[in-house]
């Protein structure tokens, strides 16, 4: 079940968003001479810290209103241009200790290396990283979206600045992204994505997705953004899949960009030893 206090807010957000997208002409325009590509380059240039430690709470709600809650502890650190991420599940009990380690290489030709530790097997398993459009552990976000952290792989899309937009009372720049070819389209599972970018912080506050058949697939709203240790950070994200009526809410807590994370946290032995 969604918390009762959230329902009217989410309802209002969706109404405003759709209206904002459709009726942008009725709002004051945000003048920009930037192209869609330049806007997205600005988004990708947004600082995200050399490292971060944070807790995620992932709440999924199915079409019957059944709510399932998972909690994770996550670490991310740059090793030069290579980004390494490790996530440990802390709740619920039956998945506690499950760990997920990713090496994300700057060379796009090179697939990520990924490992999964399942406590029931007590083994670190190498897993293929090729299905980047797949659902991330049953949520309404894909592995690619989780990995990019509200940024976009520039090489996947052609971008077009459409108009101004509005999300949660903030004016923004509406950018349409179209996959460059059918292969990318199939990999990502989208024929079109529209980002409403807040140019003050170069972050998408609202995203609409269309599936490969051009049906409206899902909507992402950033419900809360906060500047932590000087870095703009999404604290609360809501995603709804319009086809399955399945919803996911990601909230972040205990975000820390400053405390050093030891390099060995991003290794298989650490993954095997579990959360400490």
């Amino acid at each position, binding site marked *: 079940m969604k918390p009762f206090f959230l329902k009217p807010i989410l309802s209002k957000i969706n109404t405003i968003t759709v209206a904002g997208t459709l009726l942008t002409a009725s709002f004051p325009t945000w003048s920009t001479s930037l192209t869609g590509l330049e806007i997205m380059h600005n988004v990708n240039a947004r600082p995200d810290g050399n490292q971060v*430690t944070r807790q995620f709470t992932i709440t*999924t709600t*199915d079409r019957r209103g*059944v*709510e*399932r*809650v*998972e909690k994770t*502890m996550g*670490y991310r650190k740059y090793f030069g241009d290579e980004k390494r991420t490790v996530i440990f599940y802390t*709740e*619920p*009990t*039956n998945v*506690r200790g499950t760990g997920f380690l990713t090496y994300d290489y700057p060379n796009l030709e090179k*697939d990520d*290396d990924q*490992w999964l530790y399942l*406590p*029931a*097997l*007590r*083994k*670190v*398993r*190498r*897993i*293929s*990283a*090729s*299905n980047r*459009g*797949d*659902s991330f*552990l*049953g*949520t*309404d976000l894909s592995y690619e979206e989780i990995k990019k952290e509200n940024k976009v792989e520039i090489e996947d899309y052609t971008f077009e600045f459409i108009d101004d937009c509005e999300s949660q009372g903030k004016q923004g720049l509406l950018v349409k992204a179209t996959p460059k070819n059918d292969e990318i389209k199939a990999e990502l599972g989208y024929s079109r994505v529209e980002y409403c970018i807040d140019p003050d912080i170069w972050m998408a506050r609202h995203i609409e997705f269309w599936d490969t058949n051009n049906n409206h697939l899902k909507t992402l709203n950033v419900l809360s953004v906060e500047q932590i240790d000087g870095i703009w950070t999404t604290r609360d994200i809501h995603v709804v899949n319009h086809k*399955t009526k*399945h919803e996911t809410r990601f909230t972040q807590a205990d975000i820390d960009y400053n405390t050093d*994370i*030891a390099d*060995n*946290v991003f*290794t*298989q*032995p650490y993954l095997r*030893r579990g*959360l*400490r």
Partner: protein
Amino acid sequence: MKAHATKNLSRAAIVVALCHSATGFALDFRNTFENSTAFGKLDEQDDSVSSVKFSNAITSELTLPIFSGWQLFTRWRLESDTRDLIEPNRSQDKLVRSNASRRWHLNDYTSIDLREFYIDGYISLGGSDNNFIRIGKQQVVWGQADGFRVLDAINPMNLREFILEDNDDRRIPTWMVNAELPAGNWWGSDWTAQVLWIPDTTYDQTPSLRDEARFAPKSPRFVPVPDANTPGNPQSAQIIDADKPNRIISDSDFGVRLNAFVNSWDISINYLYHTLDRAAPYQSIENSAFIIEPQYERSHLLGTTFSSVFDNFTFRGEVALHSARYYIAKDFSEFSEGVAESPSVDTVFGLDFNGFSDTFISGQLFLSHITDFDDAITRDRTDTTVSLLIERDFYNQTLTLGGQWFYNANDGDGLLRFSAEYRWRSNIIVTAGLDSFYGKERGLFGQFNQQDQITLGFTVGF
């Protein structure tokens, strides 16, 4: 490399590393209640389906911070199977387990098991803070295979339900010292050395036909079966309890594993000097009686594991060389008391496919080869088993349907498993399954041809 490590050890100043906990850590206590019920035939003559297992277990875990970077972890399980057909009566822990690793039996069907009890943390040693030590009762898993045991030889197994139980439940945790130390940078990669000292003399627990256990092996491949030519009375076979090793140092197991991520390959090199987990069943005739007197033997194991990803495929494998293993011989007079000794090579190769959304397909080929083979041995020189696993997730990964097939090419027998797992709530999982054995009674799987079963269960975390 060895000399370097020795030098470092000799000048080691062991101090507690203060900065290794990435999260800070807090006391954590949690419990899991698990029900597991199975229905099948009680025996070969039984045409009806009855309850053959009704197991309820509570597992409690406690993580207790001791001091900076160090923690105590304990896991206990209270388990009760009121059908009492899996391990009938009080299980014979004393025959195969050390004093420190035995379960506490409250009655014929209820026991308390200390599943894990260890302290672990980091120490500064030889100029590095990244030296991890875990001391106590624990499980250590080597290898890449699923369901096949090639390098997974550190902990013994309780085979009370053959291979139907989860590995985590099958494995018997043992008392050991487990150290993982940096082993230098070679071929552009950081290597880690795992060093194990296992003084716990606990071995595989195999259910016995004497107890009429539901999954007691009866194939001549695994238990000596006197035939009509056997002198004495084949029906009066006597099994003498093995003289279980119990010396702390000389009967200990010692292991070393080196592992690294090199050029997109995960590789490891493994060595284990150990007591084989299954006693060699020596046979003799005394006063016209057929006597089986198992003895534990020592062996060296040298192995390697490797895995890498190619697009949608993950290739993985294991190879293990055993200096000596002991096989049952048909004619016990021809061999030293019915047991043939030979080195052996075991390998498993696996290919996982992730090309379809929410679907996992995995195939494995397992080969076990006896290098000094003799025709009297009750199995083939090369034993070949394949497995195929298909799993698919539905409804945002809340429902998982799976099918798994094991097939032994030598005996033409196999095992088919179907499973459904539904995550009803965050902390409640409901399961159902079907396990179906087929093939000749002499086969690894066929020997349990009458033990087909339907399973139901649920798990609640709290």
